[in-house]
């Protein structure tokens, strides 16, 4: 059976590690734009499956974000809408410094984001 989830991400490591096995939609966009893309999907009727503010690394600190949404539409998801809207609103609370790190730090950010989204896979695959 086809898995009913896909990952929206701007993290190349997620594409590289999970792209073959899972449906990964990779975009070269900002953290906040990933959230906005997810929001648009949620408003189209796809279900939000992972928390958009996963991880304690703050928005505008890490540039990477991966979020899982459903493949099939299942109608309005008010809880999901609330969560994604609040997440977008939270972005502005943090100083933007995603572009200020040494190159190897980005590798760490990619790794952390990858492990965060990976932590959802066992649960997502259980369906």
């Amino acid at each position, binding site marked *: 059976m086809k898995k009913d989830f896909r990952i929206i991400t701007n993290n190349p490591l997620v594409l590289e590690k999970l792209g073959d096995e899972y449906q990964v939609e990779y975009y070269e966009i900002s953290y906040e734009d990933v959230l906005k893309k997810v929001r648009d999907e949620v408003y189209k009727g796809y279900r*939000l*499956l*992972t*928390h958009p*503010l*996963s*991880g*304690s*690394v*703050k928005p505008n*600190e*890490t540039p990477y974000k991966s979020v*899982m949404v459903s493949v099939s539409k299942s109608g309005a998801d008010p*809880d*999901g809408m*609330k*969560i994604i809207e*609040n*997440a977008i*609103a*939270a972005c*502005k*609370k*943090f*100083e933007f*410094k995603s572009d*200020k*790190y*040494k190159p*190897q*730090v980005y*590798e*760490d*950010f990619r*790794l*952390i984001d990858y*492990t*965060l*989204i*990976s*932590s*959802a896979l*066992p*649960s*997502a695959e259980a369906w």
Partner: protein
Amino acid sequence: MKLEVGHIFIKDIQFGAESKIEDGVLYVSEEAVKEVVLEDEHIASVKFDIARPGESVRITPVKDVIEPRVKVEGRGGVFPGVISKVDTVGEGKTYALKGMAVVTAGKIVGFQEGIIDMTGPGADYTPFSKLNNLVVVCEPVEGIKQHDYEKAVRFAGFRVAVYLGELARNLTPDETKVYETYGIKEGMEKLPGLPRVAYVQMLQSQGLLHDTYVYGVDAKKTLSTIINPTEVMDGAIVSGNCVSACDKNPTYVHENNPVVHDLFEEHGKTINFVCQILTNENVYLADKQRSSDWTAKLCRLLDLDAVIVSQEGFGNPDTDLIMNCKKIEAEGVKTVIITDEYAGRDGKSQSLADADAAADAVVTGGNANQVIVLPKLDKVIGTLDYVNTIAGGNEHSLREDGTIEVEIQAITGATNETGFGYLSAR
């Protein structure tokens, strides 16, 4: 379940030829602790340092803070499932070295964070400035993966703590505290009429650098469960969480969980402290639903009258906190929640990423976005390399005059969400 915790006060730490505790002074043989750390092949080298309250010392980047303890009577040993074998702990007798901690420091990832200042304004914001700290700075072997290294440092800290705790095994404690909880029926008979209260602790459980272990089990793979609060005093919960310095719970906070202690203060007087409920903060939304459903169900099953819910971390856990609060309240169980805030540097933004009218009793650890200027201190243990990149810092954080301008979220324990600190906000 009854646990006696003997306190052995440590008023100073000094390096010495032989490791021992004498007249309240902990002497540490560098050779011996080095051996303990280097047991792990992932660690290339290690340095030790001592930071005392009031000294002009800054420790950064801090990974974990651990209180050395030793089990002298009863089943199991400290840190079960991690250092000691898996065996139920929480009864008998345990000694704790009070007034000191083992602090692990050093880079794991490039955005590592966590500052402990032993003096100055920064010291007010971290509870660990009041302790004599033995700082363990590890260097990894080359080419090691971050998760292997995180684990290596995590375990090194526990091994050192256990090694130091053993030094107290044959000492006489300076004071002893007794903690006792009862079985369900027993408690109702012994404490008739007292409201039944539990502590719901949410554990960080989102992935690498965001994990917590219960008897060695990764908390994200658990269902909400019941634990005896005295088990926690023997190190049943340990931290693998290195991100969000201000509101992560170092192992020290688990061992000395303030909600557990303050509920025990009232236990038998105004309340019946029934148990502790552990639940997680997973990334997957259906996990959140399951865990919070389960927590509420346990509250009902235990016929609780009230609970305190504590949180760990930022963003994602706000959703768990509100779900737990809403569902527990809906079971008719009165709820107080402890959280912290990200209200922006100006304090004007929405503090939490979730909200509900059911959360009408909130204790806050303060606004983590508050900016503070930390003075230049004489000595840095660890490295300032990461100060510019830590959460709450920016490229100007480390200023030319050596002062550091950061948000307090960079300071270890500043806005702790178990209510460990005194900071609040209105």
